[in-house]
């Protein structure tokens, strides 16, 4: 993390986009070093996952000679891996479904209609996204213990919704803003009610926006650590974010198994992420501040 390339950055000739040989080389070196830093921890994790012994990370040179996929087969057959997969899918899927469904109409209303309370609603939506987990976790835990929702996937879905619902509303509002209002007007002239306009005209057009919201909700719920670690007690109900921690306890740290599990989790998520990341950036920043 020591590279701070910004000092060289402004020197380039932007207009034509051509660099002198020195600038060219400097740029490549800086970017290559940065890419290496970005890549290394991941590669290292993959490499360590091949070492059969839990202390192999201390003498990584030895792994090369005895590399094996044993950790993977052990994780897949002898741990709760598939239970965790199921829990994670239930929690993330439930959160996504619930979040996007309840947020869609609100995003539309906030984007198109001005009604008394509009501004305060926007404020609440924005503010709730910024809630530190410490605000809600204690009362949620207390309320959920009384309702017997602790250690249940439903409970975790509900907790995740506290951030996902306002977030999706913002994101979808940003997307609806990009759909021309003339469409709504045309719909109204043709005699559609506001609901009809939303349902028949706008929603089909907003499919990409819905997809991004769903994706982001899924990823967020997937990677949620604090609530999942607190609210899930039974190790067969863990989500991945909790399950992965369970390899590392104070008494015994099975780094090799942890690494293998981490790789198994990371591969599909990462691929998935690359497929849609372009949209996520736009959504996140558009949803962030602008009203």
């Amino acid at each position, binding site marked *: 993390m020591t590279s701070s390339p910004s000092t060289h950055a402004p020197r380039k000739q932007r207009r034509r986009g051509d660099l002198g040989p020195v600038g060219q080389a400097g740029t490549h070196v800086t970017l290559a070093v940065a890419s290496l830093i970005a890549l290394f921890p991941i590669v290292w994790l993959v490499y360590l996952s091949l070492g059969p012994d839990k202390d192999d990370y201390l003498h990584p040179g030895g792994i090369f000679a005895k590399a094996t996929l044993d950790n993977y087969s052990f994780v897949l057959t002898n741990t709760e891996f598939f239970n965790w997969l199921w829990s994670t899918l239930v929690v993330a899927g439930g959160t996504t479904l619930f979040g996007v469904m309840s947020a869609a109409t609100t995003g539309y209303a906030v984007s198109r209609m001005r009604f008394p309370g509009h501004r305060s609603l926007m404020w609440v939506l924005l503010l709730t996204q910024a*809630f530190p987990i410490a605000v809600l976790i204690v009362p949620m835990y207390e309320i959920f213990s009384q309702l017997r929702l602790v250690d249940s996937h439903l409970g975790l879905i509900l907790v995740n919704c*506290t951030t996902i619902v306002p977030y999706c509303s913002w994101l979808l509002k940003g997307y609806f803003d990009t759909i021309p209002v003339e469409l709504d007007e045309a719909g109204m002239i043709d005699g559609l009610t506001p609901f009809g306009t939303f349902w028949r005209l706008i929603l089909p057009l907003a499919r990409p926006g819905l997809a991004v919201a769903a994706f982001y909700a899924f990823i967020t719920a997937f990677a949620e*650590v604090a609530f999942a670690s607190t609210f899930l007690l039974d190790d067969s109900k863990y989500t991945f974010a909790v399950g992965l921690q369970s390899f590392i306890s104070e008494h015994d740290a099975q780094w090799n198994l942890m690494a293998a599990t981490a790789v198994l989790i990371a591969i599909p998520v990462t691929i998935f992420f690359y497929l849609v990341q372009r949209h996520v950036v736009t959504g996140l920043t558009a949803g962030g501040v602008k009203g």
Partner: protein
Amino acid sequence: MTLTAPAPAAETPRSRRRAPRPVQRMRDTYRRYWYAYAMVAPVVIVLGVLVGYPLARGFYLTLTDANSLNSARTIGVNTIDATYKFIGLDNYAEILWGPAAYDRFWSHFVWTIVWTVTCVVLHYVIGLGLAMLLNQRLRGRVAYRLLLILPWAVPTFVTVFAWRIMLADAGVINSMLDTIGLASPSWLEDPTWQRTAAIMVNTWCGVPFMMLSLLGGLQSIDENLYEAAEIDGASAWQRFRHVTLPGLSSVSSTVVLLGVIWTFNQFAIIFLLFGNTAPDAQILVTWAYRLGFGQQPRDFAMSAAYGVLLLAILIVFTSFYYRWLKRNDQLA
């Protein structure tokens, strides 16, 4: 990337005539806006139940001495009723100026500020630098871009563990430092190094988002502005200072706000990097969590009080930030 302009008010009520009497006005409001209210109802209800009620409940808990020994709980078939009592604002007083206020609150408060500022500055500076490098005609641009966003693409709870292995006492980072003859710090044990490690890992995780957002911002700056500046004889630094930075101001104000909020609230990195160790490297969020869930007996009231204070800090910061933005006329 276009940051959307304020939404055009499409379905504003047809006329702005004033209803004469309150009852009449209410009926009017209802008739005009009922569909809007029906549409926002699901979210309002969800947030009311899932955020509003717990928030009120949490605030009430901060006025009590609730902990895991006197709260309502179920052991097997026996249900034990809550016995905690109302103690007013004592919790807040104890946190802010009680005998252990410095050790428990203020030291973490200061560290949280340092942590937030350092991380956001690093995110922004490195992100902007990389974005500017990527925003040129360059061989291998796409490949660099894909590699550089990897830390964001892989879930944080996975990468933090990778860092934890690398930072371990005899881990690869210390071996490398050894090889080039530098001292190998105990990253995960010594307080100063713990903090450094936390900032390092968070910077690694947070740069890609900044880089992509700023790259989007850079691409939306009109090329002609640079051309004009160059014709006027502006140096590279002047072009950066007077064309690039102003061109990025609206993206920047958004990502900096998001960065501050996310970093201030960052839980996973510190929690997973240190487990239940490293009391000095805890920021307020993780410290509050530890009071409520990482110790016995669990101090629910105190933890909730920290939560309320955290929220207050964030609200104050955000409103000042908005006011500052408005004054600089950066909110379109």
